[in-house]
């Protein structure tokens, strides 16, 4: 079978760590101790034995012992002249081992990264390429079936290796697949700082056999990178991890991951993500490989839903060419011909100064930076090379190499590690330059900008532009092997500001050409040098015209623009009248007999007073005092221009005053608006984000003492409880209202709270918890606090708390004030009362409250003769592949939008509310659903089963496998005295059947929301967390329906979601910890029956399930069973 047809390739395990454990005669080293590759020649039997051990474990691919067998590394051992011999011997050893074993296997030539990092200038392109080419040639000549460029730490080294290998493969005219495998450290990037997206962007244009990861961590540590590759790369993905993270024990390095665990984790990647090449790196033994083969017996890689994202990259990160909010902005100021400042720096040989121009554009929001050093009298190649070297190391965003000299372009491409864009090619000379540059782009994996200039000059009409683009496209794609996604067409734009009569429709022509190019050349992108449209006009008016034209371009399909990123005005900042005048000029709409659109334009902008015109470049000039503007920004939740505004304010007053006199009162206003129902919670959070950002900007300008001012509050979710959304909202509100919050997190024992409260001398303590059990924990904690001598006020919050409970059971246990707070704003209000000295404990007035109602099914007694359906099976089953999209129809949108997100109608008119939902809430929801799927935030899994059961008084007895489990259920104290056990037949009545499930959406959601909280993205944190909660509920609804169907009682599906809310189906489910069975200790038998450990769910000591987004229930089929509370 050809290697490309193998469904899964099983690589062998570790080389170095295994050789270390073998008996190697000291003489074999011949003085070159540590050079494992030399053993191929001096002790071949040892190498063959090592290969054999993996063959018998079931490996189908053996890697040659040639990791360091290149001239660069071997020269350290004086063996640089024996490269070919050593590589040949290595391949020979592998072949011999295969022959002896009698089976068949492939031989992969291993090419390691060497010890030099070209991105840091340790070695130049040429010598490294020569070393790789020499090694690749030797391996292929000796008969290697494929090459693996592995353990890559430096993206430039990756490119050099790939270019060398493909060069050799082509020259030898052999079909030898080339794999590339990266090492991504625990920090999340390759050694030199490259993230997986940047690496993929640079590698993807090469015809590699697979992209993957090896070394550094065990399988789990590679999860997010493997997922990224599987979801965004069309080819094969490989995963060759270590046996866990190394530990040092008794002076020796030990890799702790067992063969079984290693195999299980790696097999999951194949099954769930579609990885199709697996193996082991450091620390893995033949046993690991054996278990791996067992775990994957009969399994094929899962099909993959790949979304490709053509991108450019720097050494550090990638930037998608098709931005979610177009256009892709290319900063234009690093141009010796276009920018006086840049030119002056270059002429003064001030390279660091020139670099600063790039960094400023990065700050301004450019997605990439254009670099052009061509200037009469200077050595373009020397300048370009020096600048690219600087850019490569210091600029986070990708570089656009702006040159028409192929030699200069090539020199730059040999230095820059990421994926570059070459600016530009055209057909001016009939195609000679185009050929050279396109071939360079193909060799180095770059993208190319193509201008619609043909042999007779610049294309002026729409037809000409489109035809020229098509001619370039056909050459680039069909002759030079580029892909449409590698091409960005600039259909040219000419100035409409010169009065030239032949150019009045130039802008409209450009826009039309963009539309046609996108339509007729699918897959290509479009680009424009936007400022050309306004040559000849005043600087202030140019800025507005450029911005409007850019906006029109994007509407026509423009993907990228070369522009001064700092001068782009969003349309919302351009007055209606200005926009009109610009559009008239762009589309040549004559509005009056007397004057042309151009004169109208010039006149309109000339009317601006000179002073205004000068600062029209800074359109943020406020008409109101900056103090008021800051307050307005807080209330509006608007972070735009915050830094500039704060700079202005800092010149007028000290930072502490800005916070205390301007920001804090603004947040107070926000709280008041919320309290009156005039502002909704999501907007409150956006205001809090503005507050937080402002404080962060101001912090460096404050004295340490000032920064630490403010009452200190300690927050914690109590022991055994993992819920923290409520506590975190309190954190957000308090810390953005002038209080200093210390957030201890979840599951915090009383001892820790006491210790921290003392150590930090806090002014108040806030306890939070979701569970009924947590309320009891709080009641127990308070006397402990008292005994430890604490007296500060304690605020209590949590879904299970009531005023009555706090007043009657918590207050007496503590000498200081104990206050029930229903939500974050109640907490804020309590803190303010504390400041004013008017805080007192919660009291409960029984007489003043309305009588508690207990709704629930009334009337008929529970029938005893309903049929008991036959269970579809008995025992537990586990489902770990549920498509999250199946769950979306079951999401309770009303509860999500109104309840959890807080988008309530309140006092709004029906129209206003509808507009809010249509224009803001629903699009956000759709986007979250899309992202949830794309970013794999959901991994829905269920553990469920059916069991024989019968009622015994108030207890349900479940029997299975010769054992019995008891579920005592509480009974209502008032009529109709319902109890869950009543819905089951007794043993005398013939027994019954009960269903149980534990359902989770996994832990990725928890990680993603936590990341948002720690990066102060409050609004998004709330949105995502609530979304996760509702999808979990949707999973419960979906699974309950699945179980009804399996049981045969499903009948007609409820007609609309509202029918699910009122349970228009047979039977009911009751969640443990909820009103009808509040005692979570029922989780113990449920966990024994269902073994949810197999879907990754565990219990805390308070019987709460982890991960957070998990729900459990008992499924009851009795037709009269519906929700009720005890």
């Amino acid at each position, binding site marked *: 079978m050809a290697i490309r047809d193998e469904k899964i390739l099983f690589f062998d395990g570790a080389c170095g760590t295994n050789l270390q454990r073998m008996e190697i005669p000291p003489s074999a080293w011949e003085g070159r101790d540590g050079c494992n590759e030399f053993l191929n020649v001096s002790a071949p039997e040892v190498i063959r034995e090592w290969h054999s051990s993996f063959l018998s474990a079931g490996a189908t691919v053996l890697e040659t012992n040639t990791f360091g067998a290149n001239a660069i590394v071997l020269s350290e051992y004086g063996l640089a002249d024996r490269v070919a011999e050593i590589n040949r011997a290595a391949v020979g050893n592998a072949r011999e081992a295969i022959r002896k074993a009698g089976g068949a296997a492939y031989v992969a030539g291993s090419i390691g990264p060497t010890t030099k990092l070209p991105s840091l200038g340790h070695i130049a392109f040429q010598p490294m390429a020569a070393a790789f080419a020499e090694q690749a040639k030797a391996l292929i000549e000796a008969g290697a079936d494929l090459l693996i460029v592995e353990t890559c730490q430096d993206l430039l080294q990756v490119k050099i290796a790939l270019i060398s290998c493909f060069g050799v493969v082509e020259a030898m005219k052999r079909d030898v697949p080339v794999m590339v495998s990266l090492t991504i450290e625990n920090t999340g990037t390759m050694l030199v700082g490259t993230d997986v997206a940047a690496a993929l962007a640079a590698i993807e244009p090469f015809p590699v056999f697979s992209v993957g990861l090896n070394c550094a961590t065990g399988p789990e540590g590679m999860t997010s990178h493997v997922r990224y590759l599987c979801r965004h790369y069309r080819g094969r993905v490989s995963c060759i991890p270590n046996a866990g993270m190394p530990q040092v024990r008794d002076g020796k390095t030990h890799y702790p991951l067992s063969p079984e665990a290693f195999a299980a984790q790696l097999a999951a990647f194949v099954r769930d993500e579609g990885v199709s090449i697996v193996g082991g790196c450091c620390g893995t033994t033949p046993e690991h490989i054996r278990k791996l083969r067992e775990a994957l017996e009969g399994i094929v890689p899962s099909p993959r839903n790949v979304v490709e994202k053509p991108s450019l990259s720097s050494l550090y990160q990638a930037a998608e060419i098709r931005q979610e909010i177009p256009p892709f902005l290319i900063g234009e100021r690093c141009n010796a011909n276009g920018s006086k400042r840049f030119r002056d720096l270059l002429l003064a040989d001030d390279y660091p100064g020139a670099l600063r121009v790039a960094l400023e554009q990065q700050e301004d929001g450019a997605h990439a930076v254009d670099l052009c050093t061509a200037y009469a009298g200077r050595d373009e190649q020397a300048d370009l090379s020096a600048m690219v070297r600087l850019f490569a190391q210091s600029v986070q965003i990708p570089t656009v190499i702006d040159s028409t000299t192929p030699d200069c372009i090539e020199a730059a491409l040999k230095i820059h590690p990421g994926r570059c864009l070459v600016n530009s090619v055209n057909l001016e000379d009939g195609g000679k330059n185009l050929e050279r540059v396109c071939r360079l782009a193909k060799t180095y994996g770059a993208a190319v900008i193509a201008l619609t200039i043909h042999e007779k000059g610049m294309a002026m009409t729409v037809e000409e532009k489109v035809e020229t683009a098509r001619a370039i496209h056909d050459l680039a794609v069909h002759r030079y092997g580029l892909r449409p996604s590698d091409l960005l067409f600039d259909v040219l734009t000419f100035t409409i500001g010169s009065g030239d009569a032949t150019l009045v429709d130039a802008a409209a022509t450009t826009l039309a050409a963009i539309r046609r190019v996108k339509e007729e050349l699918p897959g290509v992108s479009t680009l424009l040098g936007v400022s050309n449209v306004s040559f000849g006009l005043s600087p202030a008016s140019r800025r507005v015209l450029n911005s409007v034209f850019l906006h029109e371009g994007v509407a026509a399909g423009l993907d990228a623009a070369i522009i001064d990123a700092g001068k782009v005005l969003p349309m919302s900042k351009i007055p209606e009248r200005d926009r009109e005048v610009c559009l008239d000029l762009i589309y040549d709409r004559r509005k009056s007999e007397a004057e042309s659109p151009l004169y109208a334009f010039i006149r309109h902008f000339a009317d601006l007073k000179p002073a205004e015109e000068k600062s029209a470049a800074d359109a943020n000039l406020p008409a109101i005092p900056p103090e008021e503007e800051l307050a307005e920004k807080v209330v509006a939740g608007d972070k735009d221009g915050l830094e500039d505004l704060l700079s202005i304010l800092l010149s007028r007053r000290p930072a502490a005053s800005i916070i205390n006199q301007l920001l804090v009162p603004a947040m107070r206003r926000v709280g008041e608006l919320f309290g009156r129902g005039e502002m909704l919670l999501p907007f409150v959070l956006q205001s809090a984000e503005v507050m937080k950002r402002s404080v962060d900007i101001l912090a460096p300008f404050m004295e340490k003492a000032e920064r630490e001012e403010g009452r200190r509050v300690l927050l914690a979710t109590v022991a055994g409880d993992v819920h923290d959304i409520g506590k975190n909202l309190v954190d957000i509100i308090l810390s953005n209202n002038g209080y200093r919050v210390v957030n201890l997190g979840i599951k915090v024992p009383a001892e820790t709270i006491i210790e921290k409260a003392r150590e930090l001398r806090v002014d108040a303590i806030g306890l939070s918890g979701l569970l009924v059990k947590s309320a009891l924990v709080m009641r127990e904690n308070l006397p402990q606090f008292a005994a430890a001598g604490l007296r500060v006020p304690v605020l209590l919050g949590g879904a299970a708390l009531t005023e009555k409970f706090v007043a009657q059971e918590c207050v007496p246990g503590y000498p200081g004030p104990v206050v029930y707070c229903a939500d974050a704003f109640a907490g804020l209000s309590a803190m303010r009362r504390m400041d004013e000295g008017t805080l007192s404990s919660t009291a409960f007035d029984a007489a003043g409250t309305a009588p508690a109602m207990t*709704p629930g099914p*009334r009337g008929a007694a529970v029938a005893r003769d309903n049929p008991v359906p036959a269970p579809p099976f008995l025992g537990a089953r586990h489902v770990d592949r549920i498509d999250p999209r199946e769950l979306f129809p079951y999401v309770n949108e009303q509860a999500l939008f109104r309840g959890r997100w807080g988008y309530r109608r309140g006092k709004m008119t029906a129209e206003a509310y509808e507009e809010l939902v249509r224009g803001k809430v629903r699009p956000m929801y759709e986007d979250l659903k899309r992202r949830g799927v794309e970013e794999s935030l959901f991994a829905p899994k269920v553990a469920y089963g059916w069991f024989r059961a019968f009622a015994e008084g108030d207890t349900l007895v479940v029997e299975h496998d010769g054992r019995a489990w008891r579920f005592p259920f509480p009974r209502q104290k008032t009529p109709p005295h319902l109890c869950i056990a009543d819905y089951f037949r007794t043993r005398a009545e013939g027994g019954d059947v009960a269903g149980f499930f534990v359902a989770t959406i996994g832990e990725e959601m928890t990680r993603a929301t936590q990341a948002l909280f720690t990066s102060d993205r409050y609004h998004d944190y709330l949105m995502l967390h609530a979304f996760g909660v509702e999808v979990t509920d949707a999973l419960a609804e979906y699974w309950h329906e699945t179980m009804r169907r399996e049981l045969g009682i499903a009948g007609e599906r409820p007609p609309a979601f509202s029918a699910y809310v009122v349970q228009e189906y047979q039977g009911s489910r009751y969640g443990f910890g909820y009103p009808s069975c509040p005692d979570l200790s029922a989780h113990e038998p449920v966990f024994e029956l269902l073994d949810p450990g197999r879907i990754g769910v565990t219990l805390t000591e308070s019987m709460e399930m982890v991960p957070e987004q998990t729900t459990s229930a008992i499924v009851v089929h009795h037709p009269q069973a519906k929700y009720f509370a005890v």
Partner: protein
Amino acid sequence: MKKYICTNCGYVYDPAAGDPLSGIAPGTPFDELPPGWICPICYAPKSQFDELE
């Protein structure tokens, strides 16, 4: 008469139907529900209800 929706669970109080689970007769407007009335499905208080468009 206006319907109201519970923002916690989505239950819709329809005055034409009343709330049999809590003994509320059909034709009772939302504003006239007794002070202790809670959502029959999830027990949320009246303050958590929104007027439905």
